[in-house]
Structure formats: structure tokens, C-alpha cells
């Protein structure tokens, strides 16, 4: 696999049950960029993220993501991507500890790494031995994020990442994105928040399954102390 770190879509169409959720979408993103996806409900943001994760296949057009060609290379792309959608991917019947332990085993990483991630998101305390089923919405989200951070993906795909998170959690996540992109990762963040992208990063305004406008282009967020990061 070439050590290519960029993403480029050329007239990609993705149909879901016959509906063109993405339509002739083209754009390019360089390593280290943060891209905010904005646009009305049904614009195709989630579908774009899922395509970037290798969970949906382009039906027309082609894309190159981190040196992986789409359609075709979905499986290898999945291993590189870190996706945080509306669904948490957690097993409700397992405890927080067991869910993260599963992630550790599947990723083949050390358990101190998992502990650190859990600590960071504040799920090491009382919640550690609780079943996920008994957590609040934001707590579940935090567990999922801990898994994501432990994976340390090369491309972050975040679908409305702030939803359910409290103020501290939002700040933390924003800081993590800044750090990760500083280290060369790419981040795609689908969000409806008006502030997104104000402090840096690119904004792609999507509508009708494609990019209508590249609204603003600000300095790529590499000055980034946490407080200046978009909230």
C-alpha cells in the first residue's frame, strides 16, 4: 500500500436502496486537515463518512483514501479508519471494562493504553464494572470514544461527535482532533453546529449528496491550544 496520506474523491456516487445519497462528489483533502461537513438533513454527510470508513461502496466514480482505492479496498481501509457514528458499536451486555478489553484484544495493543484512554474519558471509576446498558447516553459515547482513541486511527470519521457529550467531553474531543491532525491524521467531522470550522479547518457545505460550496477556508488548525478550538 503506498504511504499516501491524502483523500481524493472523483465524481463518486453512492446509492442506498436506489437513492443517490452521494451524487458526483469530488473533493481532495491533504494529510493533517480537518474537514467539517455541514449541510441540511439528508445532504449525505453520514453516507460520506460511511464511505470513507469502507462501510459503503461507491456505485460510480472512484476514490483514493489513504492510498486505498475505492471501490475494492474496503477491508484494508476499515482497519485504518476510526468511525464514531450515531450507533456506539458497544455490547450492551458487557461491562465498560470488557468492551474496552475486547477492543484491546482485537487491536493487539497494550492494556495500559486502554486504561489511559478510559481514564481520559472518565469511565474508569464507578462505571468501569457497569454494564453498558446501564450508562447514560453521554457515558456510552465516552466509552466509544475511549475505544476510538485507543485505536488511534489515521482517519477520524466523526458523525455529530458533540451530541450527548457534556462541555468537558466536547473540549476534550476537540483537543484530541487537533492533536491527531497535527500528527498527520485526517479528520472528517459532520456537524450542524454553526461554530464548526470557525477556528480553523475546512468546511464543506454539502447539499443533495454533493458539495455545494467550500464555504470558508481558514488557517489549518495547527496553532491549536484547546481553548481556541471550535466548540
Amino acid at each position, binding site marked *: 500500500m503506498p504511504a499516501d496520506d491524502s483523500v481524493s474523491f472523483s465524481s463518486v456516487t453512492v446509492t442506498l436502496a436506489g437513492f443517490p445519497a452521494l451524487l458526483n462528489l469530488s473533493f481532495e483533502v491533504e494529510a493533517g486537515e480537518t474537514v467539517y461537513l455541514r449541510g441540511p438533513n439528508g445532504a449525505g454527510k453520514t453516507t460520506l463518512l460511511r464511505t470513507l470508513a469502507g462501510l459503503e461502496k461507491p456505485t460510480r466514480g472512484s476514490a483514493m483514501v489513504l492510498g486505498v482505492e475505492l471501490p475494492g479496498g474496503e477491508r484494508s481501509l476499515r482497519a485504518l479508519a476510526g468511525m464514531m457514528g450515531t450507533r456506539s458499536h*458497544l455490547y*450492551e451486555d458487557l461491562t465498560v471494562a470488557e468492551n474496552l478489553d475486547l477492543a484491546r484484544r482485537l487491536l493487539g495493543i497494550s492494556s495500559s493504553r486502554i486504561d489511559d484512554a478510559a481514564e481520559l474519558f472518565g469511565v474508569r471509576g464507578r462505571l468501569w464494572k457497569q454494564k453498558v446498558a446501564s450508562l447514560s447516553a453521554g457515558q456510552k459515547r465516552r466509552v466509544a470514544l475511549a475505544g476510538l482513541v485507543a485505536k488511534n486511527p489515521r482517519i477520524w470519521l466523526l458523525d455529530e461527535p458533540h451530541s450527548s457529550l457534556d462541555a468537558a467531553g466536547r473540549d476534550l474531543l476537540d483537543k484530541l482532533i487537533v492533536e491527531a491532525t497535527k500528527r498527520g491524521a485526517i479528520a472528517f467531522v459532520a456537524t450542524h453546529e454553526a461554530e464548526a470550522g470557525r477556528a480553523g479547518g475546512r468546511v464543506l457545505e454539502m447539499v443533495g449528496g454533493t458539495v455545494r460550496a467550500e464555504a470558508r477556508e481558514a488557517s489549518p488548525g495547527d496553532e491549536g491550544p484547546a481553548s481556541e478550538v471550535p466548540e
Partner: protein
Amino acid sequence: MIRRAWAVARKDMLIEVHSKVALNQVIPFALAVLLTFGFALDTRNQLLAEIAPGLFWVVVLFSSLYLISRSFRVERENAAMEGLVLYGIDPMAVFFGKLAALALQMFVLEAVAAAGIVILFNPPVGSLGLLAISAVAATLAIGSIGLVYGALSSSEQSGESLLPLLVIPVLAPIVISAAKCWSDAESAGAGIYDPWLKIVAIFSAVFLAVGAAAFGPAMED
């Protein structure tokens, strides 16, 4: 591969340890069915002993269907299977991991059901070895096919009750052969060279191979 398969198996077993669905729900269900049958078909005892092997496998098959459904239900909530896929995991690892956990639960189920059958229906048991070997082979076959069809029919909506329809006709021959194995095992003379065992073993091998090969395409979209 093996490490990841083990992680998957371990997870499924932990889920069972926490939720005790197999232990508290499916196994008692199997016993309830045995009792109901014994009661509903209340004809002569002789007959019951005769159909006991068939009954055993039918009950095991039906109960296993619940175990298999369960095995996929836990993957469906929160789209957890998608989470596994996002680790770039080899579907084979998922298949063998889930199969191991499932087979373990099925063995316990079979032991309990067999005890129930023997106590309630009193069939003679000759060759325990033949019984055990045929049970292991049939279990692997049921598990493999069940997992493949579980993956094939798993959708967000309306897939769940499709599993039994898909699985039962495919497994019918193996269940019948396994039942014949038991019938043969009743005569003390029978050994592991039983022709029915051969059929079960062949089916088992074929289904295991088919399962391992087909699970990937079935699981990943």
C-alpha cells in the same frame, strides 16, 4: 487470526456469563419442550423410546436456533458487528470465534437434553462413544450452517424469523442422520464405524468448510 477468534469467542462467552440466556432460558426451554412432547404424544411408552433420538435432535435443533438468533442479536444492537468489521477483522476469525462460543453452549444444552431424554423416555443407550462423536459432528454442522444463515439473514429489519426457515431444510438430513446414529447406538453392538456416523461426519466437514468460506461474504455487507 487465532488471537482475534479467541477474542470474539471470549466476548460471546462473557455475554452469556452476564446474561445467562443459554443457561436460564434456552436450556429450560428445551426441557419444557421435551415435557410437552412427552405429554402431548402420550401414547405407549414403547413408542416414545422409539422416537426419542429423533425428538432429541429436533429439540436440540430448535433450541440451537434460539442460541444462534441470540448470537446475532447481540451483534445487531448498537451495530456491534459493524464495530467488529471496523477493526479490519478477518471474517474467518469472527466465524470461528462465534462458532466456538456457540458450540460450547450447544454441548451443555445437549448434555442436559440427553439426560432429560434418557430420564423421561428411557431409550436404551448402547455405544456412548458413537453417541458422543455423532453429537460433536452434528453440533459443528448445525453451528456452521446456523452462523452462515444468521449472517445472511441479519438485517436491521425483519430478518430474524427467516433464520429457522433457511436453516431447517438444510439441516434436516444431518439431524435425521444423527438421530439414526443414536438409534444404532442403542444396540450395544454398534461402534464408530456406523454408516450413519459416516454421513454425519461428511456433512459436518462439508458444512464447516462451507461455513468458513461463506461467512465472509455473508457478514461483510
